[in-house]
């Protein structure tokens, strides 16, 4: 359990939320790239959203996250913007890290867009701490530039782009030395642009690290029949299969809640999944016998799960 220690508006749409341990002790240490899952207590349901920690890695007295109000919020980010107050108690998961720094890199090239910069705020502290070579390029809307300028404090190694036209990824990759590692975090279109440029440049996959965010989005409602439990649950248009399972009191495994880690894979016995994850192989997708419950939905009115 954590208590909200402070809330700082960085722009009309971006807030920094600072947590402290509710019991007066210390949080567990967390590394650059780690996230926590915040249980957001809405009026009718609990949202569980993953947020990167932006506090200095290893700092145990407080955790900090930065939350952008999503335009078509399902409720989680809007609640944090409109209803979160200093002193409130919030449940945080233990930190997990699906986007760690590779310390064998000779140089770290960090590319982000929009709110995807958050893991890199922790990266910068860790990299500067040991004097590692790095270069960061961040793309954002002109209207949000002041907020990101304040967060990043541009320098020779940190460049802010208010138009994606000034960020020429192909040219940037071409001038990197061997043993540079590329880290990318941002919305899907940005991730696609960068990873396609990296593929064209022959960038080694072992030196490309991606963290997608956005997590669950809504869609058409469907039913999930749990073959072993013998029950059927309804998945509403604004909730994920994982959230519907949790609402039904089923303790389903999960870790990233963003379709990346593979932890929430469930066997599918019937129906056709609508895959939105980044984990399953093409062959596995085509087989239609597994689904990542945190982000994927159904193309058929009903899915039958081996659960």
């Amino acid at each position, binding site marked *: 359990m954590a208590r909200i220690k402070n809330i700082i508006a960085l722009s009309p749409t971006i807030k920094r939320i600072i947590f402290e341990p509710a019991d007066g002790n210390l949080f*567990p*240490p*967390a*590394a650059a*790239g*780690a996230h926590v899952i915040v249980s957001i207590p809405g009026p009718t349901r609990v949202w569980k959203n993953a947020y990167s920690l932006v506090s200095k*890695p*290893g700092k145990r007295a407080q955790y900090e996250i930065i939350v952008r109000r999503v335009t078509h919020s399902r409720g989680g980010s809007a609640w944090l913007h409109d209803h979160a107050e200093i002193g409130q108690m919030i449940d945080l998961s*233990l*930190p*997990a*890290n699906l986007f*760690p720094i*590779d*310390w*064998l890199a000779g140089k770290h090239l960090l590319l982000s867009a929009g709110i995807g910069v958050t893991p890199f705020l922790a990266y910068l502290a860790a990299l500067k701490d*040991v004097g590692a070579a790095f270069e960061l390029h961040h793309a954002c809307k002109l209207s949000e530039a002041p907020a990101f300028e304040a967060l990043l404090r541009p320098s020779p190694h940190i460049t802010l782009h208010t138009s994606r036209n000034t960020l020429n990824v192909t040219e940037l990759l071409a001038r990197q030395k061997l043993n540079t590692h590329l880290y990318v975090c941002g919305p899907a279109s940005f991730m696609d642009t960068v990873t396609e440029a990296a593929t064209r440049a022959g960038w080694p996959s*072992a030196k490309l690290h991606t963290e997608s965010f956005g997590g669950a989005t809504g869609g058409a409602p469907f039913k999930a029949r749990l073959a072993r439990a013998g029950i059927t649950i309804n998945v509403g248009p604004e909730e994920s299969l994982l959230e519907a399972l949790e609402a039904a009191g089923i303790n389903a495994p999960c*870790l990233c809640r963003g379709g990346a*880690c*593979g*932890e929430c894979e469930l066997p599918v016995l019937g129906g056709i999944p609508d895959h939105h994850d980044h984990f399953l192989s093409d062959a596995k997708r085509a087989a239609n016998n597994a689904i990542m419950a945190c982000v994927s939905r159904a193309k058929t009115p009903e899915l039958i799960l081996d659960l």
Partner: protein
Amino acid sequence: MNISLKPAETFRGDFSARNSDDAILRFPFPFPEDAYMYAVNIEPHVRGGPTAAYDAVFDIDEHYIGECEDRALTLIDDPLRCQVLPHMRLAEWDTLELLMESLAFDYPSLFELHRQGDQWRWVNHPLGIDQSFTFGDAETLPYPPFEYITRQVQGDFTIQDQRENNLFMDGGMVTSQADWSLNFDLGMSFHEWHGPVPVAHELGVFDRALAYLLRLQFGKPVRRLNWTLTVNPRLDTSPENYPEWGPDKATITPENVGHKMCLRVELQTLTRLPRSNAILFGIRGYLIRLEEVVRVKKWGRRLHRVLRDLHPEIAEYKGMPRYRQTIVDYLSAFDDGAPTNSGTAPEQSRL
């Protein structure tokens, strides 16, 4: 936890190490059934289990002082038993933090940890250590942080870096190993360092174990048991020192097998480290003479059946062919053919 530590015993030379009745009853006997085959036998590492060896995150027992002294002797002869690659700096501090916090919590009468921000003071009563240092500053400790703390804990440790969807053995303190070498394995990937293990590759055990470990979560450590046989209670059965201990295998006779032959069990723990995202692999070894094992009736019966029926390739890998029959003949006297209950708990509270 209330434990009494023995004065230093020897795990070489005259092999004075013995297990008290308490130590026998708390032994982590590895066979839940009367037969053995490789499996991904991983379970959550939570406090509590079939014997008292599972009561702490890192188990300290009556052999603590002697095992730490044996490690120090081995390191004098061969400093390469402790190596950590330079990119594992954070994992070194992770290890020190985890071990100090766990030991001070589980054994407050033996270890104390006092912290004020980055200023730490570590007190180890059994070894007479009182060390103040700055967390994160290796210059303030007499050894690098990983070596410093693992010199003071029973069992071997390796640290695995996670990258490229794989684990790499990029550091370790290995002085009580069952015939494998850190100096040889350092830097290897998961399948590479498991290369010599027979049968299990074909079963797909390592593919599944790796996939599982890559998703190991902070705060949810896991454990498994491994076992082999060792002549004499010798901690350092390393390839580097094979000339020291290899010839012992030829000394086993029907008369001395019960006293000299030891069952060697490793309580292995895997813990995700929070600062480095590396995995700490603890290999906590226990040695028990056959004459000590058979004092627990269930274990005597079961060990006879397991070794009698063991897959020949596994017996070969564990170095048994030369004396397997001698062991089985000895153990057969303690197997009355009665059925055994599943699970590893001793089912008797005194010997």
